[in-house]
């Protein structure tokens, strides 16, 4: 299971409390995690990445294991600790949410 932590506004939209746990098919990457997240919570489509270009929204950042992954290629494998569920994949709104 992949653990994903969403910012408060997106938890409200998705109507979830706390972490989201996702089953991800195949290699665990930013893209595959976000694909699985949006498939389960379609109301989040367009909120983390653009509907069409799939580009990360400018004020959204991705972190895991203390690393900033925001500028990593979307198809790069995520750290093993994310893949095996030891660490969450963090979606963070930049600048403390405005």
């Amino acid at each position, binding site marked *: 299971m992949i653990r994903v932590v969403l*910012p*408060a*506004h*997106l938890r409200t*939209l998705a109507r979830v409390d706390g972490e989201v746990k996702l089953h991800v098919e195949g290699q665990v990457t930013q893209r595959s995690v976000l694909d699985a997240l949006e*498939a389960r*919570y*379609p*109301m989040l*489509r*367009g*909120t*983390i990445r*653009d*509907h*069409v270009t799939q580009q990360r*929204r400018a*004020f*959204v950042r991705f972190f895991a294991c203390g690393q900033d992954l925001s500028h990593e290629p979307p198809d790069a494998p995520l750290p093993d600790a994310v893949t095996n569920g030891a660490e969450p994949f963090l979606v963070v*709104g*930049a600048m403390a*949410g*405005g």
Partner: protein
Amino acid sequence: MSKVRVLVGTRKGAFVLTSDGKRERWDVSGPHFAGWEIYHLKGSAADPNRLYASQTSGWFGQIIQRSDDGGKTWHQPGTPPGEPTTTPEGMPKGESNKFVYDTSPETGKPLTTHQWYDGTPHPWEFKRVWHLEPSLTDPETVYAGVEDAALFRSSDGGRTWQELPGLRGVKGHLWQPGAGGMCLHTIVLDRSNPERIFIAISAAGVFRTDDAGKTWQAMNRGLKSLYELPDPNAEVGHCVHRIAMHRSRPGVLFMQKHWDVMRSDDAGESWHEVSGNLPTDFGFPIDIHAHQPDTIYVVPIKSDSEHYPPDGKLRVYRSRTGGNEWEALTKGLPQRDCYVNVLRDAMTVDSLDPCGVYFGTTGGQVYASPDAGDSWAPIVRDLPAVLSVEVQTLP
């Protein structure tokens, strides 16, 4: 007894204010969608319980919300509360927050460019919905004016949106953003002609369609933007802040331009200035009395860099003559040390008799006048900055 429901969009959520026909005592509900910018909420004239709201964020993009019970509960269209958000096959039921410019092979339109602030070409990029205008006859049909400027329509209650791309074809490559962004902020539907729609864009101007959105014409003859455009009489590029039309008189339009209050007596074919004795003709909103089509309201603002009332006095100005002759309305409004702004979508009128007038400020006050502007009182004083105010008159 009739009652009114005032829908207020703010920088940090939506509020619903209700009162009976006297409009003296108010119930306040909210914040709805706390923490999000609510650019606009509006109810359907065909079904007053059907409300649409634009919930937006610089962080997380655009969300469309809908209520089918007059604002008690809300949901994203296509995902009713309590129901699964996907079909049994796992597909989302709606794409209510998906606004994609039309570049389809069917229309053959490539993604074009508009002008950036520095005059360089810039591709259209969707940012947010500024204004939602429900159809006058069908609760399922609603128009959305968006930034970067374009007009979208949904005919399935907000589940899906399609652009009316002909509009951007009217010299869209020359449109440019105003200080607030390049937004389509005003949509005026014509009760007497369902095929006719007026829209206004900052900074492009007024446009009209007579075939329900397939083709459009610029309607800016007579506008003069002396210090803002290299050609002050340009066909497009004017920073129109708001237009208004009375339901009983579809050929007559009023406009608050960046500077200048304007009037058209020929459905936008030409405009002439009616600023008259206003202390300043800069401002944002303009609206019309529900029962007197020549009675109009504006809120003069000092200048385009000083976005507050002249002399620290918050004054609504009313003309009973369709412009040129204006009177200051001050009773109940702060007449010293007031430095708020009133934004373009933040003034509205109800249809009771006497007509109620409402406006909201960037200081978080929402003022109501139950007597057509003669006197005012705050409904609320301390909301987040108000972006929009609409009112529904209910039986």
